[in-house]
């Protein structure tokens, strides 16, 4: 990123290639629709490009990138008019039950493989728990970095991740 900040466009391509898959899936799992995910994904990178002069290597680039993405996803949740998506920064939503599986066509859910079912379950997690889970799975972040990206304390991040894992394990076990 420092090289790109100093004008090396090839350095950006290396970064982009390394992070585009994980970041796109992070956006897709949050936005659920490919169109919205692509819009969010593109906006994150445009923000990265625009903010590169402010980039300081105090934290890993991954943490910085996902911090921008997290903020953009929060904007996405706030702007969602349908009410289908709860706010990511709403603490009260943390312990609410997962979204109703009936939102998805039942026959399709039953036909999916176990892995696909897991992704569905991730999508049904409360946004904060989903965010913590995705930050670990897609960005490879540890608890401290997840807390930094989310703007919360380490214990809060740990709690979110623990709840997410517990729900996923329970749901998978019940379906087997």
């Amino acid at each position, binding site marked *: 990123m420092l090289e*790109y900040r*100093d*004008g090396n466009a090839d350095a950006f*391509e290396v970064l982009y290639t390394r992070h585009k898959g994980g970041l796109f*899936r992070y956006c897709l799992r949050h936005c659920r629709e490919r169109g919205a995910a692509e819009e969010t994904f593109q906006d994150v990178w445009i923000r990265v490009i*625009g903010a590169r002069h402010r980039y300081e290597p105090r934290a890993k680039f991954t943490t910085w990138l996902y911090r921008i993405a997290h903020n953009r996803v929060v904007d996405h949740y706030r702007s969602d008019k349908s009410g289908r998506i709860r706010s990511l920064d709403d603490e009260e939503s943390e312990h609410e039950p997962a979204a109703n599986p009936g939102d998805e066509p039942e026959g399709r859910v039953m036909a999916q*493989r176990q892995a696909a079912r897991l992704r569905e379950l991730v999508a049904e997690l409360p946004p904060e728990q989903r965010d913590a889970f995705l930050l*670990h*799975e897609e960005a490879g972040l540890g608890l401290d970095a997840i807390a930094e990206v989310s703007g919360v304390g380490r214990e809060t991040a740990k709690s979110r991740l623990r709840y997410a*894992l517990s729900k996923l394990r329970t749901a998978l076990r019940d379906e087997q």
Partner: protein
Amino acid sequence: MTPEERDDELLDEYLKGDSEISRLYRRDAGEQPGAHLDARILSQARREADRKHRVVHSPFARHWMVPASLAAVMILTVSVIVLVPDPALDTGAPPDTGLDAPDAVRMSDEKEEGATVESMPAPASAPAPAESRPRREQAFEAKDADRQRAGEAVGKPSEKRKSAAERDDAPRAESAAPSAGAASMAAPAALEEAARAPEAIPARAVQDDPRRWLRHIEMLVEQQFADQAGDSLRAFRARYPDFPLPASLAPLAESLDAERR
């Protein structure tokens, strides 16, 4: 083991990266952005890098561009104030004075103050134009008229002498500007002071140049400040005992010698 401890243990295993949940999640999870999105973002990044890179070549340049620009503007401004002669006082003297370059630059200042170049023991190749004095006086009169219009010192009987003293000391204040940073700001105050009473001993910058000092004495004589001229010449001879005096100051020197005897 409590359920919470069990959850913590499972969380630690999960964070190590080799859990069943992780393997399951990553299976077939290969969604990627479309090629059109890649192209759009990469071209945007390249365009921004090219644009910014043309303007700012390095972090060093980026950090120092503004301070360096300000410093350059200040140096240019001070140089213009100190070095550019006042066109109202242009005597029309020929540029070739037979002096080396630094002296020639100083001479351009000296022409402003109406220096009696023709009376200096200068090389023969530096003749003063016959009409330089009338033109100089015209310039002085024009400057006096401006000052009167500005309402400064109207109706005072010694106006002409004061104006001459101002003209004599103005270059002195300006010549001190490079060594004393705020001298150019103090120039109006110096002019006011000089307008009240001309000083026999000129500014240090003039003292350091015997030719300028002699012209200062000549100006005092010319403006009939005999006492100041005598004091100044006395001080001059104490500092430059062997420097040849111009013919115009010979009578004053003889009178000082006679006093001493």
